[in-house]
C-alpha cells in the first residue's frame, strides 16, 4: 500500500509541518508518494527538507513534482531535481537541466554537506555571489556579508560535527510578502542525522533531567551554547549565529526531533518554542535576514 503525502501549494518551514503530520502515522518502511503536483512555491527550507524527508524513509519514497512549468523549472535551477532523482522514485515529468542564465535569486543552489571540505566550498561560492546581492539589493553592510558567510559556515559545520550523516544547504533571496513586504535572504540547512537530543546525550558523563526531551536539548544547544564536547571553546558557533541574527534583525529557527525553537524578531509572530510536533530525524535550521530599510 502506498500512502499519498500531499505537499501544500506554498511550501516553507511552517507548511512543511503539514507534510510531517501526514507522514507521522505512516510506518517508516511503508511506501509513500510525496505529491507536489499542486505546489507553486517552495522556500529553500521546503526543498532541502523534502530531500531530508526522503532520507528518513525505510522504503524509497516516490515523488511527483510541480505541474506548473515555472515552478518545476525553478526547482531544477535551485538544484532540487539533481538530488531528488537519487533519493526518490520519480514519477511524472522531470524537468531536464538546461544551460541557461544562472538564477539570480539562488545564492547557493542545494548543496550536499558531508565533510569539512564541503563547508570550505560553500563559503568560497557564497562569497563570490553574495556580496553584490546582499549589499546592493538588500542594503546590508559589506561587513554583514562576511558575517553572513561565517554564519553559513557555522551552521554547515553542525552537520559535519554532530549529524553523523550528510545534509543539505541552500541559500536564496526572495520577497517575503506574507510578513514583511521586504526581500529576505534565507539560509536553510537540513539533515536527517541524530539530532540535537542524541548528540547532547552522547556527551560523556552527561546527566539527563526528568524532563529531558527534544525541546530541552534545543534550549541547551541554541540558547545556552551547550555542546556534546566538554572543550570550553565548543558551542560558540551557534552563539555567533545568534549574535549575527540579532544584530541584523533576523530570525533563527531550529527544528530537531519533535521540537522547534525560534529567535523571533519583532516583524514575526512565530512561537519561540513548539513542542510535540510530528517527528523528523536530524536537525533543520533556517536563518532569515531581512532587507535593511533606510532610516527616515
Amino acid at each position, binding site marked *: 500500500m502506498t500512502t499519498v503525502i500531499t505537499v501544500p501549494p506554498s511550501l516553507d518551514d511552517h507548511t512543511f509541518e503539514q507534510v510531517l503530520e501526514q507522514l507521522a502515522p505512516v510506518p517508516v518502511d511503508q511506501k509513500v508518494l510525496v505529491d507536489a503536483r499542486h505546489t507553486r512555491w517552495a522556500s529553500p527550507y521546503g526543498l532541502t527538507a523534502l530531500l531530508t524527508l526522503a532520507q528518513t524513509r525505510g522504503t524509497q519514497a516516490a515523488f511527483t513534482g510541480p505541474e506548473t512549468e515555472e515552478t518545476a523549472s525553478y526547482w531544477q535551477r535551485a538544484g532540487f531535481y539533481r538530488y531528488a532523482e537519487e533519493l526518490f522514485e520519480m514519477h511524472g515529468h522531470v524537468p531536464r537541466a538546461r544551460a541557461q542564465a544562472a538564477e539570480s535569486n539562488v545564492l547557493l543552489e542545494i548543496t550536499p554537506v558531508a565533510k*569539512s571540505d564541503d563547508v570550505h566550498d560553500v563559503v*568560497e561560492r557564497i*562569497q563570490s555571489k553574495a556580496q553584490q546581492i546582499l549589499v546592493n539589493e538588500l542594503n546590508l553592510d559589506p561587513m554583514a556579508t*562576511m558575517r553572513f558567510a*561565517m554564519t553559513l559556515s*557555522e551552521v554547515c*559545520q553542525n552537520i559535519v560535527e554532530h549529524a553523523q550523516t550528510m545534509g543539505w544547504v541552500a541559500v536564496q533571496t526572495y520577497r517575503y510578502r506574507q510578513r514583511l513586504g521586504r526581500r529576505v535572504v534565507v539560509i536553510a540547512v537540513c539533515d536527517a542525522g541524530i539530532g540535537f537530543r542524541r548528540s547532547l546525550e552522547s556527551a560523556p558523563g552527561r546527566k539527563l533531567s526528568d524532563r529531558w526531551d527534544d525541546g530541552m536539548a534545543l534550549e541547551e544547544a541554541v540558547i545556552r551554547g551547550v555542546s556534546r564536547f566538554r572543550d570550553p*571553546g565548543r558551542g560558540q*558557533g551557534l552563539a*555567533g549565529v545568534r549574535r549575527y541574527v540579532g544584530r541584523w534583525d533576523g530570525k533563527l529557527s531550529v527544528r530537531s526531533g519533535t521540537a522547534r525553537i525560534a529567535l523571533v524578531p519583532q516583524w514575526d509572530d512565530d512561537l519561540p518554542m513548539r513542542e510535540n510536533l510530528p517527528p523528523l530525524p536530524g536537525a533543520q535550521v533556517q536563518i532569515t535576514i531581512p532587507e535593511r530599510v533606510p532610516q527616515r
Partner: protein
Amino acid sequence: MIYHISVSSVLRKTVCDLYTNLVTRPTGVAVRQAIEAALAELPEPNVTVIDFAQVKMLDFSCADEVVGKLLDFYQKAEGQPQRYFLIRGVHDGHLEAIEAVLERYNLAVIVEDESGTIRLVGTLDDGARRAWQVVNAHGRVNPQELERELGAPAETASRVLDTLSARRLVMWRDDGCVSLPQAL
C-alpha cells in the same frame, strides 16, 4: 627573537593551496598544529607575530583553534615559557571571532589591525588595562614610572606589571617592562 607566521601560508601549505578562508574545526586544528610545530623549534624568549593578512574570513571554530587553544596552551604551560604573541593583519570580521574566543578562555592579546593601530583585546581588569596603555604609550616603563602615571602605590604598580607579564602582554627587560610592539 621575533618570528613571523603567516596564517594564510600555513593554511595553504597544510590544508589546501586554494583556500583563503579559515573555516571549519579540522582546518583550525591542522593550522594550529602546524603553528605549534613551528613554535616548538624556537628558542625563548620570543615574540611570535601571528599574521592574518590574506585570510578573508575566520569563523568561530577556527578562531577557537588557532587563537583560543594556541594562546591558552602557552598561558597555562608549566614553567611559564617566555613566548609572547602579537596578532596582526586582522579586520573587524576576524576580530569578532577572536574576541569571542578570548572571552571564553579568559585571555587577552595584543592586536595590530590592518591600519597598523595597536590595541589590547580580550578580558583584562580595568587597572591592568590602564597599565598596559601606559606601557604601550611609552614603549618601556618601570614600576616607579607606572606608579607616577597611575598614582598607584609602588607595590601595586609592580604587581600590575607582573600580571601583564604573566599574561604575556608585556615583556620584562632588565628593570622595566616593554610593550610587545616595542620589542619588535
